[in-house]
């Protein structure tokens, strides 16, 4: 077991975890943050995307011990004080959600993009979510949502 300390959505967390525990397991099973989904478990679908020090990662491929000392941001940290972020609101308004299983990962990839590039080009948007698979929407509305949230992406 390894002792780790990290921040998750702004809260300090301290835990003792097995070496093989993934960050996704830690978030879902230890912290009950089930917004990040396991769609494949091998880093190919993006449904478990979270931000590790503002960088998007597939949490199924990151070990919990690798997050030691870092700042983790999940979908549960996206809305502040019960208010949807502009990005979340744009997903609702653009009809970018169908079954919703890919949505948390998709929004986190978009969040990472907006943090590093507040006014992204269409190419940047496509590139940012190219690793997030969605089987329902055909992506068009998702791209529209991220475009609509352009300029709102600084730290909320």
């Amino acid at each position, binding site marked *: 077991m390894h002792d780790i300390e990290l921040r998750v959505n702004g809260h300090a967390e301290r835990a003792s975890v097995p070496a093989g525990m993934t960050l996704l397991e830690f978030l*879902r099973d230890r912290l009950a*943050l*089930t*917004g*990040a*989904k*396991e*769609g*494949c*478990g*091998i880093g*190919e*679908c993006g*449904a478990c995307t979270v931000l590790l020090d503002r960088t998007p990662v597939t949490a199924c491929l990151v070990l919990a011990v690798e997050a030691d000392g870092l700042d983790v941001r*999940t*979908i*549960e940290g*996206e*809305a502040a004080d019960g208010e*949807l972020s502009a990005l*979340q609101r744009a*997903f*609702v*308004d653009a*009809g970018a*959600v*169908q*079954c*919703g*299983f*890919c*949505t*948390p990962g998709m*929004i986190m990839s978009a969040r990472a993009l907006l943090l590093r590039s507040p006014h992204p080009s269409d190419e940047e*948007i*496509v*590139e940012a*979510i*190219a*690793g*997030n*698979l*969605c*089987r*329902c*929407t*055909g*992506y*068009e*509305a*998702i*791209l529209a949502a991220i475009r609509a949230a352009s300029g709102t992406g600084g730290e909320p």
Partner: protein
Amino acid sequence: MTRALSCVGKSVPRGDAVEKVTGSARYAHDLALPGMLHAALVTSPHASARIARVDVADAAALPGVRAILAGANLDVRLGLYMRDKRILARDVVRYQGEPVVAVAADTLDIAREACRRVRVEYEPTRAVFDPRDAMKSGAPLVHPDLESYAHLEGVFFPKSNTNVAHHQKIRKGDVDAAIASAEVTLEARFDNPPVQHVPMETHAAIAQALPDGRVEIWTSSQSPYTVRHLMSVVFGLPHASIRVHVPYVGGGFGGKAGLNLEPLVYVLSKAAGGRPVKFVATREQEFNTLPSRQGLHSTIEIGATRAGKIVALKATYVWDAGAYADYGVNVGRAAAYSGAGPYAVPNCSIDSFVVYTNKVYGTAYRGFGHLEVLWGIERAIDQMARKLGLDPAEFRRRNLLTVGDTTITGETFTAGHGKPVECLDAVAKAIEWGTPSTPPASSTKRRGKGIAMLHKAPAMPTSTSCSAIIKLDEDGAADILVSGVDYGQGTYTVLRQIAAEELRLPIDAVHINSDCDTAFTPYDWQTVASRFSYMGGHAVIEAAADCLRQLRFAAAQVFGVAPEKIVCENASAYPDGEPERAIPYRSLALGYVYPNGNAIGGPVIGHGRFIARGLTHLAPDTGQGRPAQFWTYGAHGVEVEVDTETGEIEILRIASAVDAGKVLNAGLARGQVIGGVVQGIGSALWEGFRFDKEGRLKNPSFVDYKIPTAKDLPREMVPILLENPQPDGPYGARGVAEHPMISVPSAIGNALYDALGIEFASLPLSPEHVIARLAEKGTKP
């Protein structure tokens, strides 16, 4: 007097969107119960083998293992239409990936470790992989006991001592004579590989066997009541003892219809002393263990006059059912009665064979066989048009069903069916059909245009039914209870709009259950076949009318007028012409209280129902009858650019028209079209199972099985929703959810011919496939 619609037709956002964008929506994947165990599977490495010995001693010795089961422990067969499948393979395995042993343990890691310790000895047996080979005499029998299997009698016709699980015949006129005397004939063959649905949430289920014999199930399913019913049939349990919960479902597309993992987790829970057991399929199991879309081999003959009228169509469809054909038999049936395309065909003969092979098995998948048969039909129609020297759109126009024509099963086409030709014309216009593509920027690229028609009706039992309950709350708002599942299509939002319209409530005052629970939400067959907004819509209209009757009755007493003189408007009731006296629903919802304390009425609860009307079984020898509650027609027009150096196809634009009858929610309907088109592009360009010589699936992962990503979108997508009303549809609507996917490959294949002058007969149209055909033709620059 018809009143302008206030809510139906509007782009009301999904009611569940906020839960979904915040990560708080709970899926079966996310659920955990106290004391819950986790299950893992040992699956077969062989496509066909006898199970000689199963040794679980080492696995059972592992601390934390609570139950281990093998097929020998479970003598039941499962199925909706054809009971041909075991919970765990018993005596033999029939496909690589088939579950053989299941373990429930304290943690998933322990369950998986236990599975590694299970030793199974197999004796490989002769396998058959191509359904055409499987139909030959002397082929190994995948199910030697086929004769003894229970199935839906009078609808499906398994052939004993063969691999044919079902043979659907359609006979109209004299096809052989008509082809023999036709001025122009064409024969062509086409192939579709099996593909995967790829819901982002893999199948997940939890069951708890309770000590009093009851069962509680939580499952990612499209079919709460069908799960309950089949669990009852399989295990001999009273229906009321089985409670099925369906929380949010992360995509279905047909793959979560019928019964899937629920029996497995139930028997594990029983074996583990009644502790809840959860199983979540890995992505590899989703590809390799859970069902897929069947492959298809088509042979199509068409006879026509020189003037361009189709006189005959003869088709043989050989479906690759894989190892089990429970749902596959119905795909083979439905695709046969639609199997000549949306055309007036005076002489028609279709033989649709659903054939067992030693591969992962098939089930329903968005379009239910229609994408597959229309890949062949719509490519053949194009080829025939060229043979006749006709423009492919014009050839279609001359043969599309119009009022007074009869379909191949003898149904009369009416104005209420919608207008296929308007769909064709709309997409032709949108892609500037008839105008050559502008030349590509690079000399190694080629451009072309293609069109294709589509049609589909819900494939469902003749007595399929549905029900809805609406309860009024203390504040006068309405709660809808249904057991159709909204796994992304948007049907719940549409039902809220319908209830708001009928009850004269604002949309925000209409709520719907976000999950289904067979203990509380009323009966629905299952959520498949693009039928729920239609059938559920009717049930909600009737439930709302029931509520209004109760409101009017109470209000009539209050005002001392006849109930029919009461107007319900703006969430209130008043005597006709006297809106200033209105009583809000909230003062009637639980009963009206007079100033002196006397009360009348009572809680307002309405119920509504709908049952399929006028459907018949198809005559076994001719397929004549009425299989369809309604038909939905559509068309795609596409312009592609092919890179002759890489074989890559880029979709420059795709226009997709569907005759929706009435668009109930414009934004959600558009979402179904765009999502369906992109899923269809996956089937067209990349998706397809590849097997090695031993029948092992070679591409059970996203690395080797590519689905469309955000990088693969067409440059332009044009959804077109036509509104020629369905007279018996709610507000004139018909189903549209599956349809946009159908015939996308056909349109792309036709455009590819236009671009390259090469006939593509098999899918997918992958870069390797395109390059190989270019090399064959010697046109590679």
